[in-house]
């Protein structure tokens, strides 16, 4: 396993390998063809697989998702690209109503094995409409699966799992990580299973739950706390729906303290659900309030000064950890 790939290359490799393995896998979206996608994720696929398996679409997000659903009903496994996660709002109905409910209304007789890839997240100077973290809307919709890798390994392994999964999966790939994160990736048929979190760092004092780009400053903050004698267990959720209750609860048994970090806004971000479930089901295990470190309830501004003010970072995370440790 000597090979190291960037997060972006890992996504591309997952696509290429799955397309080689299964002729029913194809990709579609705006500029995904000869151009290789706005970020270059699909580069090379058009040359290898041709225009019927790497389909350039018009600017029609709703149709992109709807077409994927139709193809999936005939046994295909479409991977649709939203050019930016922000534009997923334009394909919203097809995801939350068409895809998420089909199996249920069919009485279990069919399934919608589509993947919607959504490049999300800020810290790239994208402003209000190129920086969004819309995962909360989809976590709130039964019938979907939602994943958000933070490493090259998971980017590849989770995408393979998503493609093979029989349910509609919304796959959030964080733009900040595309070229900034590199690492080993799984080989061959190895996947990263949906629904399983990864413990990135063991610790006995506080459990930190995070995902996506926030894994990086979270680990930094944990390192700082270690120097102060506080051992933070950092859990990267990887799958947001269904999130990995077992891993979370097991860690809590050890630490009795929880901090949640995400880039999505606070109100009804995933942290709300995690905090609520913990407060409901593990009330007596908690020695301190469950603290959330998140984006404030506002939009992602363009100015780097403003954007930096909004993003959680190692400082703000470390502060929260200290507060919880001292409680």
């Amino acid at each position: 396993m000597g090979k190291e790939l960037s997060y972006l290359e890992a996504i591309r490799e997952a696509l290429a390998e799955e397309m080689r393995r299964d002729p029913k896998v194809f990709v579609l979206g705006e500029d995904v063809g000869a151009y290789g996608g706005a970020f270059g994720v699909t580069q090379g696929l058009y040359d290898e697989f041709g225009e019927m398996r790497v389909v350039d679409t018009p600017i029609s997000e709703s149709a992109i998702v709807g077409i994927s659903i139709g193809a999936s009903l005939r046994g295909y496994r479409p991977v649709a690209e939203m050019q930016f996660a922000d534009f997923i709002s334009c394909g919203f109905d097809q995801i939350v109503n068409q895809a998420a409910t089909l199996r249920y209304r069919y009485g279990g007789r069919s399934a919608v094995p589509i993947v919607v890839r959504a490049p999300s997240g800020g810290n790239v100077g994208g402003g209000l409409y190129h920086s969004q973290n819309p995962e909360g809307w989809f976590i709130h919709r039964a019938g979907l699966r939602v994943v958000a890798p933070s490493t090259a390994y998971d980017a590849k392994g989770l995408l393979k799992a998503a493609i093979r999964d029989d349910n509609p999966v919304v796959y959030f790939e964080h733009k900040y990580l595309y070229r900034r994160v590199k690492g080993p990736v799984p080989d061959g048929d190895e996947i990263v299973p949906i629904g399983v979190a990864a413990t990135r760092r063991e610790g006995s004092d506080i459990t930190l739950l995070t995902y996506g780009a926030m894994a990086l400053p979270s680990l930094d903050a944990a390192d700082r706390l270690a120097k102060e004698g506080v051992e933070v267990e950092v859990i990267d959720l990887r799958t947001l729906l269904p999130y990995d209750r077992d891993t979370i609860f097991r860690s809590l048994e050890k630490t009795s303290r929880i901090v949640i970090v995400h880039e999505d806004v606070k109100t009804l971000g995933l942290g709300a659900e995690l905090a609520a479930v913990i407060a409901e089901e593990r009330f007596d295990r908690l020695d301190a309030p469950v603290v959330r470190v998140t984006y404030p309830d506002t939009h992602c501004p363009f100015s780097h000064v403003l954007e930096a003010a909004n993003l959680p970072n190692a400082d703000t995370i470390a502060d929260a950890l200290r507060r919880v440790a001292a409680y």
Partner: protein
Amino acid sequence: MPPIKRTKFKLAPEQLLEMFYWLKLIRAFDERLSILVKQGKVRSGVYTGIGQEAIIVGTCYGLRREDFICPLHRDLGSFLMKGVEPRVMMSQMFGKVTGLSKGRDSALHSGVDELGIFGNTSMLGSNLPVAAGLALTFKMEKTDNVVIAYFGEGASNTGDFHEALNFAGVQQLPVVFICENNQYAYSVPSEKSMAIDDVADRAHGYGFDGVAINGNDVLAVYQATLGALARARGGDGPTLVECKTYRWHGHSEHDKAFYRTDEELAMWKSRDPIPTFTTYLRTRHVLDDAKQQEIEGKVKTTIDEAVDFAMNAADPAPEDAVTDLYA
């Protein structure tokens, strides 16, 4: 608008009688539903297609099992023609386990992949991108199967209509778009929701042909569909066939339809597709009293049996409210 393609066709007497049977059966199915609603026995929203049967019979008659249909809410008859047993369809309306949805939903909200039936959500227009996706797979496989997608003139004002037809045009997909223009979208007459006379004209904005025909003449519908199907099967892309028609009942069984005049309704009732076709068959000696009685008897038995079956079928078990959500 180009002239209607005059595809030559010859139907054997048995085939014409089959069409007659379907017209009668579909009418009877909807009429019985209407009664069941008034009796408080069916609690589903019921949107009958009474008066519009020629469209379903004319468009479905030439289909193969492999072809797909994407019906709208008034098209329960198309489920029957495509192979769903009347008792199953009736069960669907009662929300029983023996229905396609196993009680999860009613009416058109379930499909059968093996029979080539897509069951949509309620969101008007949202079946059209799915139809494009189904058709895309037929193109990928280079088969000559087709998709027929239905929509009302009202639904032709949705964004999904536009995105789907545009994609179908670009990709020259094997899909036939059937507009059931019954002059009203709920209470709104078409002149208040579009500034054109013929929805068929919209096809030209997508690079394919649109034709407007008499939707109450089953043979005219059959003929126009044949032409469109031939084009689609031959790789020459989509056609929009607009069938001018009228619904006799209100939008749903709960709608008194005060927004239209008695004269208008009477005028359209005089164009009832069934007597017109009956006269056609009788003057050609395809149908006589005995045959007609036999067919009407069979229709009555079938519907009676379907209602009995559905009423006696089991309600789903409460536990099943949460199953069949994920594959």
